């Protein structure tokens, strides 16, 4: 095991306050990307 000197801290995220909100933002972002890809496919195929 690595030395105990590396005690791990689980800090809050630097934005949005809490980790669940950051996770939700990532999932919403994924939905937007898929929607954009779909629009792109429809527009040019």
């Amino acid at each position: 095991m690595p030395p105990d000197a590396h005690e791990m801290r689980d800090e809050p995220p630097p934005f949005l306050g809490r980790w669940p909100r950051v996770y939700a933002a990532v999932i919403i972002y994924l939905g937007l990307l898929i929607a954009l890809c779909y629009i792109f496919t429809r527009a040019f195929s």
Partner: protein
Amino acid sequence: MRPLDWVVLVGSLVSIIAYGLYRGRGSNTVDRYLLAGKSMPWYAMALSIMATQASAITFISTTGQSYVDGMRFVQFYFGMPLAMVVLSATAVPIFHRAKVYTAYEYLENRFDAKTRALASVIFLMQRGLSVGLTFYAPAIVLSVIFGWPDRLTTLIIGVTVVIYTVTGGIRTITWTDVQQMLIILFGLLVALVMILWMLPRQVSILDAIHLAGAAGKLNAVTFHFDWNDRYNLWSGLIGGMFLALSYFGCDQSQVQRYLTGKSIAQSKLSLLFTAMAKIPMQFFILFIGAMVFVFYIFEPAPMVFQRAEYERIQRPEMRARYDPIAARYQDAIARRKTEALAIVEARHAHDPRAENEAMFRYRSAQRDVDTARLEGAHLVAATGGEKGFRDTNYIFLSFVTRYLPAGIVGLVIAVILAATMSSSSGEINSLATVSVVDIYKRHFRKDASDRHYLAASRLATAFWGAYAVAFSGFGKNLGSLIEAVNIVGSLFYGSLLGVFVLAFFFKRVTGTGAFVGLLAGEAAIFAAFLFTGISFLWYNVIGCVVVIAAGMAVSYATRRRALPLTI
């Protein structure tokens, strides 16, 4: 290669290696050598993770994939953000708090030594095969440019990588990746600008996008569900999520990256940033491939992009079979060019009827081009070439070396070689870590000094470098390299994921249950691979589900047997 290309190539490589070694100085303990002393910031880890994935294979093969099959490969990455969220909430804090060097070390804490050993061996087999493919990609580059034998090229690159990896450890690898990622993005941008700039004057960017779309190259999303279809929305979201969960949660080459983080939050941020950046980046790379396709509508595209094979099937003794195919191909590409220009003209004249008519003829010509290319590939395979010959990996490089100006060619080659060196060095480093920590230290030499294990790590690094070079020829017969890497990974990842899911979420599962479940999962995946036509993305789901089911069943049965009988 012109003198300016050599200057750019050599200058880029020397600066990358020098910078990496400079940042990696002081890696003189096992903790610093394997985990960078847990000092890395999130952005360095994120760019390092992305650079490892954006290897030469990505650059060479994905663009060719798009040229041949369109952009639907991007769906493969749709599951990644979901996986990163799950891993940030579970694996990252668990691994960090367990204070482990490897993911498999955690399995002994949770289950037993045999489960840890089996998982380690599965990883070593899988990653050992993949690292060979990573080496093979740049060998293609140099064989196309210089005509050097693949094996010699692989050996030269392999020796260079081993020396550089043995010296610097993971800190060197991470910082080198950061620098490479910036060069890769710059190189990609320059390549796209050059392609668009070299299109005929009357063809605008929007026209080019329309021509690519009309030929079916911009099919970024397909909703149609088919178990045997590799890339659709559902296989991407579900299969892709399982593959990403396995890759980032159970593959030491990635786990080791975020174990170097200075805090749990920094490691989480690195994964989430990767999740957000990966899909746009892959879209961008695939789009470049689609634009190369448009470029070749107006320039003479070779029927076969691998020059040596193309020249071979044009020899006098082959002419009887080659000439009819070549004639059909030349006729088809001439018709395609004419109709593409007709589409552009009709668009500029705002004449939808003429555009539709030209579009119909353009698509027909494209189908004839595809058919003739397929016949050409069959001719290569039937006359002594590789079995199942495909030239996907040669398309982008053929374009780069033939059309890009002096300096840019050197930059692109530098990006490809540097990406290979860094990707493979990270893989070799993780293989060495598992060999030393999970096998050697655990089973052969438990109480040696830190200096001894550091030397063992360096020796293991050299061994895995040699192993990778020996297996690099495996990539030759696997078609698109990017697919080959993912297929090899999918044969092992699902069951590894299953055992970690058991460890994290099923408190009542025993070590024996996990061990048997792991074996059952591997058996199920290989059965699916050998006896069904199920797409490889689903192997991860199958393996994971079988491991969980078998692990729970065996744990339940063995616990019942262990309970004392009461009357």
